[in-house]
């Protein structure tokens, strides 16, 4: 929501940054920091938290975090373009209600009802995408509006009642394990498929390069031939579709379709994405960081739950991490500006000519 940020968004791309060895360039990134933090927390929890290494911990961690893991994928791409989608949890709620109505009230078979519910989610995403990309409205305002609109439709359609008569076969599927006795639930299969798709899309395709370019400068992206409108439109459609899928999973996992299902999930998804090193200004971020960010939230909450720490404290910790993760960037650059300023002043006092030299070497921004 502020502007003087382009220099920060591209800080890894200066000549000075490339003078470091490859290994340092890989290690000194936000993504690596999150992964390292995840490993530290995981290893610590494994060693010190009772029952954390039990078979159920990871299983429930994946089950609970699955909607957030899923939606974080398209959300990453959206935030990299500099937009935001606050309506994802409302889409989840709406598809949950649609699934309930189509299956229980209209009597459609489950796969048909699920497909129609996903179509509703895609339509919701297309509505967002149309308003943001083609009408040119700010996505923050649009998706605050559709957050209320889609949630309102969901609550309006069902009121306070809940549809719970889903067949055992389908509700069991949501909780089934890939291999009996292992701690990996079935939902990880679609997740891994989506991770591969989104990783290919973001990191190994022209579409993905366009996503980054739009985030850095959409005007320049347009001149290099990126179809800015179409790219943004598709991203919102994807977010709608994936949210719908997550909504169906949520419904089946808890066996109930309610209007207020998955309320406030949008904040968790965005927190996870930003924690994973994606810049809210756009143009910077990577999927492996985001996945580590989601898992970090999951590991922290399940470890703290096992330690009998209340969820309120967990929320305080997650909020604190989120604030720290964004503050740290500017804090570190402030420190480095301070130290390099001191170094330059020291040089300047010893030999003014040399300091001119080093001043000229500074990449201009």
């Amino acid at each position, binding site marked *: 929501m502020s502007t003087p940020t382009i220099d920060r968004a591209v800080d890894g791309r200066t000549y000075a940054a490339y003078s470091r060895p490859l290994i340092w360039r890989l290690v000194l990134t936000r993504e690596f920091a999150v992964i390292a933090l995840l490993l530290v927390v995981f290893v610590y929890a494994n060693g010190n938290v009772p029952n954390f290494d039990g078979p159920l911990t990871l299983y429930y961690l994946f089950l609970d975090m699955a909607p957030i893991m899923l939606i974080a994928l398209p959300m990453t791409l959206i935030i990299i373009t500099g937009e935001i989608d606050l309506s994802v949890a409302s889409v989840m709620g709406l598809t949950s209600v649609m699934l309930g109505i189509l299956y229980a009230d209209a009597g459609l078979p489950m796969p048909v009802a699920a497909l129609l519910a996903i179509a509703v989610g895609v339509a919701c995403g297309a509505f967002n995408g149309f308003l943001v990309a083609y009408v040119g409205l700010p996505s923050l305002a649009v998706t*605050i509006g559709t*957050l209320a609109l889609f949630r*309102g439709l969901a*609550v309006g359609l069902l009121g306070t009642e809940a549809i719970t008569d889903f067949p055992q076969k389908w509700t069991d599927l949501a909780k089934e394990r890939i291999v009996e006795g292992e701690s990996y639930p079935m939902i990880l299969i679609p997740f891994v498929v989506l991770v591969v798709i989104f990783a290919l899309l973001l990191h190994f395709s022209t579409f993905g390069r366009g996503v980054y370019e739009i985030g850095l400068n959409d005007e320049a992206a347009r001149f290099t031939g990126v179809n800015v409108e179409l790219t943004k439109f598709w991203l919102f459609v994807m977010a709608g579709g994936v949210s719908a899928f997550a909504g169906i999973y949520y419904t089946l996992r808890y066996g109930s379709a309610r209007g207020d299902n998955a309320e406030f999930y949008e904040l968790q998804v965005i927190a996870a994405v930003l924690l994973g090193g994606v810049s809210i200004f756009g143009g910077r971020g990577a999927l492996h960081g985001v996945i580590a960010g989601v898992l970090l939230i999951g590991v922290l909450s399940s470890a703290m739950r096992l330690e009998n720490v209340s969820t309120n404290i967990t929320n305080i910790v997650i*909020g604190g991490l989120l604030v720290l993760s964004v*503050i740290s960037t500017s804090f570190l650059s402030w420190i480095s500006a301070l130290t390099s300023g001191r170094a330059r002043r020291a040089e300047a006092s010893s030999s003014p000519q040399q300091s001119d030299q080093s001043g000229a070497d500074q990449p201009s921004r």
Partner: protein
Amino acid sequence: VTDTLIKPSSAPPLQRALTTALRSREIAVFIVLAALIALATVKSSSFLIGSDGWRNLLVTPSILLLLAVGQTVVIVTRNVDLSVGSTLGLTAYLTGRLFVDQPGIPIPLVFLIGLAFGGLLGLVNGVLVAFGKVPALVITLGTLYIYRGIFLEWAGSDRINASDLPADFLRLGNQQILTIPVLTLIALVVLAAVGYYLHTARGGRELYAIGSDPDAAKLYGLNVTKRVLWAFILCGALAGLAGVFFAARYGSVSSNAGRNLELEAVAAAVIGGVAIFGGVGTVWGAAIGAFLLVTIDRALPILGIPDFWQRAVVGGLIIGAVVLDRVLSARQERKLIEARAES
């Protein structure tokens, strides 16, 4: 027509005032609000007439009004404060605790403590945003979690009930001066003060300048950091005041206090014509937007629509308002370009 576009001051004052009024977003939203109230009153006269209806109409929106005013001040600087709902909940609980732990504490002091405590929470946001140079959306999303976590952890399973609060304090929620409830009066005084400041004072105009173009404001020599910091402190303080209102109005504070209100405050501002990217909009508009949102909530059941649909209507209104802004500004821009080409 083109003359008035380039040189609006060349038109006669009466005509100018009339065009401004006709184009004014505040008046447009006010007409919608008035129409809604009229419609609901025709359906059921107790909506407006009768002491209960009149009081409810005025007192219920005063909480959201305070939040919307604070939110507008922040949004005008091209920031946003998502933590106001949590601030409200935390302060409402603090208010209840003060009365429980310090029996006989003077009520004005409680109001001051609420303001100060909210301001302190706003200061935290402001320091992080203004000095950390990081987006307000992320920071206040983080503090939303933190403040609510502190609130719930502090409250535990405990809740403040009407029996814990002194009768004088609870009477504030019902008391009326010239049929206008006291809480509404306080909220309107705050609205007038903030509105006057934003409209005329140098500091207020600087907030608009910062929101229109932060870089230009900085180059021009405005103290952006200080202004943004104070905008967040004001927003937090008003949310704190709203927390005290909440305790007085409802008499009980549960863990749900203030939930979701941050988005309603943003919605009220956007409906009232405050541009989400800063620099445009007034607190008057936001205040009318707040009244409209709360009144819709009450009017829908009377109009025969189950109140479950309230949020859908609100969502539609927000999108409608944003689309309308876009269409109007595009038309204005086109006309200005034509006028420039002609002259």
